[in-house]
């Protein structure tokens, strides 16, 4: 009898949604529990860091790692899980390309601390104290992991074998990845798995008519036609520059895609691709008109890189 594959799950800077997403395979979770040995899953089971540290290097067959690398503890665990795992999977947008936490790369540690611990209107902090990596309490010493200036993806921290996009990945895709793993049918390392090879637009049922727009609308400003392409109605939609796989979910609620499945195959920078796609629907014959129309797009960086700033070419903004 062949030994069951040993599988681990871990979360770093995450929201917990990726762990819930694993459970979203619903009754198949029992099949999974049958087919593999889950050796580490802090959210669901009683195992500790020490257990993992005690394992031999490479003794975990596959580790599904969600969450971004925001602090020193996240990085330590990324290195630990890499060392112990034969296959390391970046699961979900945060691990894959920084996710929402990577919007923090529009600021830095000092900026975030200033806002959270001084600037916020409910904060009462006359002494301007800040969390410290090491602090002497009356009763003893307390420690905190160092908070980084820049959020990194898992792949920017350690070598990663597979990437599963999505915030969070959709259940049918997660299951497809588990199946491929169990059957030994995973593609070559370095691949994106649990997603399609096209764009969200290719899966979307909203009809495209090659229309151009004279005006962009923000989502609260317009009630769109539920049958037609949102982008062609002037709502910035990330579908054209986002990898297929979710089934074009967000447009089914009459709201635009925000790009959580990351760039489509062959695209190096999702934001740049999206910029071109959005510009392509601008109905302008003069420079002035083009300028006027695109000036209605509210927040290019936060929209085009909503889930992937850490994984973008420039990775972060320049701050003082």
């Amino acid at each position, binding site marked *: 009898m062949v030994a069951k594959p040993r599988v681990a799950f871990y979360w770093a800077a995450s*929201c*917990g949604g990726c762990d819930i997403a694993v459970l979203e395979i619903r009754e198949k979770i029992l099949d999974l529990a049958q087919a593999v040995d889950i050796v580490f899953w*802090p959210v669901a089971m009683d195992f500790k860091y020490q257990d993992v540290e005690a394992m031999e290097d490479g003794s975990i067959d596959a580790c599904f790692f969600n969450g971004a690398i925001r602090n020193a503890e996240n990085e330590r665990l990324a290195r630990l899980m890499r060392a112990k795992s034969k296959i390391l999977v970046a699961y979900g947008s945060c691990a894959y390309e920084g996710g929402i936490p990577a919007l923090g790369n529009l600021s830095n540690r000092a900026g975030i601390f200033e806002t*959270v611990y001084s600037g916020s209107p*409910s904060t009462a902090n006359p002494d301007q*104290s800040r969390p410290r990596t090491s602090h002497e309490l009356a009763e003893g*010493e307390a420690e905190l992991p160092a908070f980084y200036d820049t959020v990194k993806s898992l792949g920017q921290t350690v070598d990663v074998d597979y990437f599963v996009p999505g*915030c*969070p990945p959709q259940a049918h895709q997660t299951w497809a990845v588990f199946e491929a793993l169990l059957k030994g049918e995973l593609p070559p390392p370095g691949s994106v798995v649990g997603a399609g090879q096209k764009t969200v637009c290719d899966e979307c049922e909203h009809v495209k008519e090659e229309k151009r727009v004279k005006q962009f609308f923000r989502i609260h400003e317009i009630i769109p036609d539920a049958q037609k392409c949102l982008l062609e109605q002037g709502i910035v939609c990330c579908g054209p520059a986002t990898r297929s796989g979710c089934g074009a979910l967000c447009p089914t609620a009459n709201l635009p895609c925000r790009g959580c499945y990351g760039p489509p195959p062959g695209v190096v920078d999702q934001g740049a691709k999206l910029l071109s796609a959005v510009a392509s629907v601008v109905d302008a014959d003069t420079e002035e008109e083009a300028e006027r129309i695109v000036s209605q797009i509210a927040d290019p960086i*936060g929209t085009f890189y909503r889930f992937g700033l850490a994984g973008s070419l420039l990775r972060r903004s320049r701050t003082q």
Partner: protein
Amino acid sequence: MKKISIDPITRLEGHGRIDIFLDEDGEVANAYLVIPELRGFEKFCQGRPVEELPRITSRICGVCPEAHLLASAKACDAVYHVEPPSAGKKLRELFYSAFYVGDHATHFYILGGPDFVMGPDADPAVRNILGVIGKVGVEVAGKVVEARARALDIVKMLGARTVHPICAIPGGMSKSLGAEERVHVEESARWMVDFAQFTIQLFDDLVLGNQEYVDLILGDVFALPTYYMGLVDDNNRVNFYDGLVRVVDPEGGELVKYAPHEYLDNIAERVEPWTYVKIPYLKKVGWKGFTGGKDSGVYQATPLSRLNAAEGMATPLAQAEYERMYETLGGKPVHQTLTTHWARIIELLYAAERLLELATDPEITDPNVRTIPTETPTEGVGIVEAPRGTLTHHYVTDEQGLVTSCNLIVGTTNNIAPMSTSIRQAAQGLIKKGEVISEGLLNMVEMAFRAYDPCMSCATHALPGRMPLEVRILNDAGQLIERLSQGID
């Protein structure tokens, strides 16, 4: 001085750790609940268009994204000075009620419930959902799974996704409820009301029928009189989606009832150098340290707190259960934190009844669920009751609606101070002259903690059914002199 670390206690919007310090005599000097994680949403939401915040801030928590989505959308409504149409508001509440049923069911059966159903002294190996199944029958497991699935199906029907749904936007909902969809919701709601009643019956049989458990609930180790907070409607009845925040003192007298935009007059947050999470307290009472009582600004925001802070439930079956609970326990307010499990299933019943009311409201399928804002955006506060506490989002924008300030007081953090206090109390009761009752300490600390349903014990704490805990006792030189653990060796 000794230091005991319980590390890590898995998730609380990040990872958590408990440090218990002993003094020279081996008595508990203090206990700290340390949250070593911060993601900085308050900063990186600045510069974003405010209408995108519901979809961004929901990523604070994948366990209760619905709560963030709605608090955020309500803050956006206020920023744009817009009222959603009546059907839009009702649809938001319908969506939220469905979520509540799923979340409370998960917590009761999978997280907190096993402590009761199996009893706290049961072998930890059976103190989990599997043990519950063994004791009360396998059909229970099926029902819990079905409750969750039905709830999530409604969430997805409206919100497009089960985790991180997206349907709430400034001015209302992005999607209305179709006639066929409504039939489906109504059918589920009826099922859920039955399920909630079944749950209460189960609780009666297994818990209230057993004096040992009742004694445990009412025991002193878990009593923490503080202020209590919860959202109430016009008649001071519990509401999850809308209303005023009511705070009562440890004797049950009303301290204040405030509208969302008045939160800054009422809540302040402390910064401590040993944790990344800020600690909220009642501004008018003031910060007196990690302690309960009328002079301390520490408050709780849990299911029990909501029941304490209100004067009743807005639906008939839940109201009857509300009355019965307080009668059984000898009046209001109740301070025993473990009672929150009971309060939670009363809320479960309320959520199911409310869902049914809304699903059968003639207006609910009205396609007019959005108002387009026309006024210049300025500033707004949105508050909902998250399952784990009152949730406040506060945004200020420029004239373009780009965020210049974003302030968030999230569910679980409300309870950081009382959790720390409960943990210290539990530890004080269990550590005398440096002597530790090993399994007892871990169990009790865990139960004190879990009663709050902190996000770290999120919906998935499923398989072995108890939290991995480790207590390390260190001497002055930082050397390990004793190690107690569960779920580790």
